[in-house]
């Protein structure tokens, strides 16, 4: 997984649910590009057309609440969003994201410090975000067990490596 990310900010509020991120009517699709096309459609129908690769979603509390649908982080990742930074995340969305190698970062207060369109740089391993002003905002780095998954590039390569090192 890329550990230095930069992109423009798209701002969202509290309680962005999985129904906002990818609506139930698209869950029949197993194609990530189809899911990407409809990402965030229930909040902003034109979102997928406006996003550029590398862009960053910044939200307030409880991002990804609701369903366990893994299509939610898959849709954002396939759209080219480089990471989601929120005050807090719902737990299944958080785990799903880490597991598919999509960075999610808890950074309470960042939402209030940025404007839509701001260019941010994120250092995942260093644990900070650089604002357009040059100010640095730090966040808690991943705990060791999550960092291992992030470094492996997701849960599948991590489990595979674990099994191989144990010689099955």
């Amino acid at each position, binding site marked *: 997984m890329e550990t230095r990310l930069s992109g423009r900010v798209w701002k969202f509020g509290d309680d962005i649910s999985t129904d*906002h991120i990818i609506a139930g009517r698209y*869950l029949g699709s197993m194609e990530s590009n189809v899911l990407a096309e409809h990402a965030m459609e229930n909040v902003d129908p034109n979102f997928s057309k406006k996003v550029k690769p590398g862009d960053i979603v910044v939200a307030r509390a409880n991002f990804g609440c*609701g369903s366990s649908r*893994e299509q939610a982080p898959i849709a954002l990742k396939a759209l080219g969003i480089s990471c989601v930074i929120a005050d807090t995340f719902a737990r299944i969305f958080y785990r799903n994201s880490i597991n598919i190698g999509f960075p999610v970062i808890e950074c309470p207060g960042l939402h209030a410090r940025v404007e839509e369109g701001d260019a941010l740089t994120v250092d995942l391993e260093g644990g900070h975000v650089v604002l357009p002003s040059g100010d640095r905002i730090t966040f808690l780095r991943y705990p060791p067990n999550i960092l291992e998954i992030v470094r492996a590039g997701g849960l599948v390569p991590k*489990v595979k490596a674990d*099994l191989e090192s144990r010689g099955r």
Partner: protein
Amino acid sequence: MPDQTMAEKILARASGSESVRPGQIVDGQVDLLYMHEMLALAIKPFEEIGVGKVWDPAKCVVTVDHWVPPPNEQIARMHQSIREFCWAQGIERFHDVGDHGIIHQLVVERGYVHPGELVIGCDSHTNMAGAMGAFAAGIGATETAAVLATGKLWLKVPESLRVQVRGTLSRRTGAKDVILKVIQTTGDDGAAYKAVEFHGATIQAFPMNERFVLSNMTTEMGAKAGMLPSDDTTRTYLEEVGAGDAFRPVDSDPNARFLKTYDIDVDGMGPQVACPNNPANVKPIEDVIGTKIDMAFVGSCTNARIQDLRATAEILKGEMIAPRVRMIVTPASQGIYRQAVKEGLAQIFLESGATFTSSTCGPCFGGHMGVLAPKEVCISSTNRNYPGRMGSPEAQVYLASPYTVAASALYGEITDPRGL
């Protein structure tokens, strides 16, 4: 050994430790892994992991529930891939179309969930199984693949919240109204990353079907798990579903540490309704009486058990639903469907003008069999009402008990079932 909560006890046992403490990361040995259509998304990562065979097919349960029967070829292919996977892997507890049910209901009514177990399901409402005195949590597709391969899941031992409920409810008011009140109190992320335990006289008096509503909707509090102690009610239920031997008492210790205790007095409380667009936006029914509706839905893992269908029939019997209103009744499993036909409930629904369908999650998540158009207003016995949950993002969804949904269907507007 320190006094422990239910979550701590179950996770200690599942990870082979004497005791665990909140914040600790444990590798839990999974006692039951259950799956629906999300399995189709887990097959590829499972194959990539490369173990070939599922760790223990006897600990897996699979059904199809979100789109049943398949509404299009895309879903038919999804079901086909699931079917072929189960057959190839020797997963015998695969319940295909006709024998299916919404997975959370199916696993309890078939006696697959037992007190003290670590239960993992690939759906957010897996919390429901916690009413059996189990630790039950939801995961996504990639993690399902990892559990299929290894039988293990890492979990951070959660802090626990205690919800203590006392008082006698008003007529035609039940667990749905109680849990809506609780969610209003905590907010829709008030239990994020935490385990919730329900205690108190009101809770103890609830039969299993009502207890399932409580644990089910701890998901709408953001909880990792929602649990009730196992007691004589649990034991009787297990005996009825042919798993009496699996009973064991599970409860928190007297001095277990809870991060917070909510004391909720529901004495005399009437029906509650969660208003658009958040399950925590709860109001007493008096505040929303008269709100016009286009559709009324009784269904989902939350409130479509036989007792919910009986409550619906009690209201509809001999009456017609209001003009310009559609009502859909969808049982939570085919077992419940058969029972509803046998008891004559199906006849009551059909004669009142309601549509009575076979079991599916369909309308609850805006999938099929009753999706909402823009501007439509629905009152629903389901669990979530975020924008677009049941169809158009411009539709509005009110969450309530089956009694309230049925009463509202008769009058075409939100109606207090106690007045009927």
